[in-house]
């Protein structure tokens, strides 16, 4: 995905000319997307497309799976049809009807259309290891229209025909060097739906990661990184638009998981490559942080305080207004960061690195050996280390100061992500009690942290306020800090007990107890 101008630059650059192995072909593609009046297909995350290409017609049903586009698989059905209407009976597979549900004749009407001129180049390429690969590079130019709104389409699609898959990523990087290019966060159908309804796609949660028990560490890394990228990409647009605070939150979760993965897998990663992704993820997280803090304040804390003290609620208004204004500014920073080429490069290049197993180059000695080691032992080792780290950070729990608590919280969080990646590899009756206790502990530590953050934010807003609003802002901020201090006392009474419960929970991941 890129801007129309960038597409022209890439197309005109001729970087692929010397690799052409045939004549470019041009096709005019008209895609008509159908749905019911009440957009039931979209609600079921299904898109139905009638494609006209020359005088042939194809009906395609795509069903969006878990995470996000590009890197995740979707279920898809396609049939050639003769009529210009979308008859679902053309799909022979009854599973199609399980997916779409009851759709009666006449209910399906065209909702949006994409018109694309696709120029396809047949390309042969030799990868860095000297292996040949054949690909088709398609340049899509056109538009998507829904009713009276429309927007341009400019996309490059690289499809492997045969040979080395690494060629795909080498070409992508080569094209990226010519002009800005990023991974498409939304399939065309999702863009059409957004044009049609004006509604951004909904934020997505990470979803479960299932690792093969017989996998190597390198296999597992690839799966985990892929899922982190897909999770992040699925939330790029929701976060940029900011209609639902969950978008920024989920993008942050995706980046945190990525950072945890980079740290948990560090023994299998060459340091130089690893550090680059750590730095980039930290940069983007930093751009999202202020917005998230204000989201929590405006959408969670202030409403719950207003509900708890209805008589005083009007006196929170000045603080709320200031927080809203700040939030809009912070949202602007979020959107700019996501739109930046730095962010585009982060996910494009991280995806290339992930798909190519970029950790292999520059890997030597123990790093290389770790990559090839069996996952199960490695995972047990990681969990052991993280578990011990949490215990250490929590020693003399009652005496920990704020900084100590903070360090403990971070360790707990990392252990939690490690478990999200690896816990499914193990089985036994100790798994759930352990996970539950850790989750309970993490929740309270997280709430305590939210309280600390909200105090800082309220204080800053009160300090920054000027003019006639100042006394009311200060009053509201004082109320909030007072209320949060009270909650902190209540939580403090619980957290000690939760810590003791976690301490009593026994690890479940000794390799001998691996799931059968």
């Amino acid at each position, binding site marked *: 995905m890129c801007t129309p101008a960038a597409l022209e630059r890439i197309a005109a650059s001729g970087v692929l000319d010397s690799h052409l192995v045939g004549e470019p072909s041009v096709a005019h593609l008209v895609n008509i997307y159908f749905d019911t009046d*009440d957009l*039931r297909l979209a*609600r*079921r995350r299904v898109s139905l497309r009638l494609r006209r290409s020359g005088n042939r017609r194809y009906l395609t049903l795509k069903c969006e799976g878990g995470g996000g586009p590009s890197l995740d698989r979707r279920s898809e059905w396609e049939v050639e049809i003769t009529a210009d209407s979308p008859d*679902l*009976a053309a799909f022979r597979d*009854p599973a199609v*009807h*399980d997916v779409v*549900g*009851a*759709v*009666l*004749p006449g*209910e399906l009407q065209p909702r949006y259309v994409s018109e694309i001129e696709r120029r396809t180049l047949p390309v042969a390429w030799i990868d860095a290891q000297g292996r040949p690969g054949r690909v088709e590079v398609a340049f899509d130019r056109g538009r998507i229209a829904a009713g009276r709104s429309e927007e341009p389409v400019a996309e490059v699609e690289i499809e492997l025909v045969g040979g080395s898959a690494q060629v795909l990523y080498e070409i992508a990087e080569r094209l990226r060097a010519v002009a800005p290019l990023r991974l498409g966060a939304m399939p065309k159908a999702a863009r059409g739906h957004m044009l049609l309804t004006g509604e951004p796609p909904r934020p997505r949660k990470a979803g479960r990661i299932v690792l093969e028990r017989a996998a190597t560490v390198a296999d597992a890394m690839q799966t985990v990184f892929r899922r982190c990228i897909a999770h992040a990409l699925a939330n790029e647009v929701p976060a940029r638009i900011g209609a639902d605070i969950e978008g920024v939150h989920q993008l942050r979760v995706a980046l945190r998981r990525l950072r945890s993965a980079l740290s948990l897998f560090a023994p299998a990663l060459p340091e130089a490559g690893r550090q680059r992704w750590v730095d980039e993820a930290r940069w983007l997280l930093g751009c999202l942080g202020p917005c998230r803090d204000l989201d929590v304040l405006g959408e969670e804390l202030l409403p719950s305080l207003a509900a708890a003290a209805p008589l005083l609620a009007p006196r929170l208004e000045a603080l709320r207004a200031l927080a809203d204004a700040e939030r809009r500014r912070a949202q602007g920073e979020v959107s700019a960061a996501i739109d930046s080429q730095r962010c585009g490069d982060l996910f494009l290049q991280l995806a290339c690195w992930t798909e190519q197993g970029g950790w292999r180059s520059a890997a030597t000695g123990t790093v290389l050996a770790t990559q090839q080691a069996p996952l199960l032992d490695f995972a047990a080792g990681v969990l052991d280390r993280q578990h011990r780290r949490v215990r250490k950070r929590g020693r003399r729990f009652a005496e920990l100061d704020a900084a100590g608590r903070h360090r403990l919280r971070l360790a707990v969080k990392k252990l939690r992500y490690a478990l999200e990646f690896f816990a499914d590899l193990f089985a036994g009756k100790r798994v759930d009690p352990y996970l539950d206790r850790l989750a309970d502990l993490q929740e309270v530590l997280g709430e305590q942290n939210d309280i600390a953050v909200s105090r800082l934010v309220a204080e800053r807003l009160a300090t920054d306020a000027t003019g006639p609003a100042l006394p009311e802002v200060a009053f509201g901020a004082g109320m909030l800090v007072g209320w949060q201090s009270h909650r902190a006392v209540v939580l403090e009474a619980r957290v000690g007990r939760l810590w003791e419960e976690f301490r009593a929970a026994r690890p479940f991941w000794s390799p001998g107890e691996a799931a059968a």
Partner: protein
Amino acid sequence: MIAVLVTNTKGGCGKTTIATNLAAAFAASRLTTALANVDRQRSAMQWLAARPSRLPAIRGLDWRKDIGEVPDDVQRLVIDAPAGLRLRQVDQLLTEADVVLVPVQASAFDVDSTRRFLDRLGELKPVRKQRKGVFLVANRVRPRTRASRRLDQALAELGHPVAARLADRALYAELAATGLGVFDVGGSVAVEARREWLDLVHAVEDSLA
């Protein structure tokens, strides 16, 4: 599979009309559909026997004696319950169902007996725990009449959502005799009826999505 139970202890309120038309609507959507007949009067089975073979097939399941097996490939099952069932029998059918449709006609008599039926239905665990959606279907409505306004009020007090309002139409007697549903007849006759039925189909589908 999604199973829809059409039930009301009150006789003649439109259970079979609704069950057969709903089954025909699922079949017209190309879903593999079955229609279970529980009634000794065999009215659903008779409708099926009259159904022309050129139309999308509907499998008949004879549940007059016992609740039978449902073939694995069935995607939608509609159960036509008879009038005057005992609560225990309703409870058994309920375990097979995902959604319950309760037809109600516009007479004070029907509304009263439906209220009693809903009260008893509400005592059954899956309904009480709100695990199964229960929808009312206003049947034989004559729009813009006093009776229909009274029915609307009465329905609002019954405490369950109204999935659709089906008008009183001569068409239904004809469909019943010929094994057809509103979506199987073309032309303008059924246009308005089809619109009412879309509400019903959507309510059923959305309740489970």
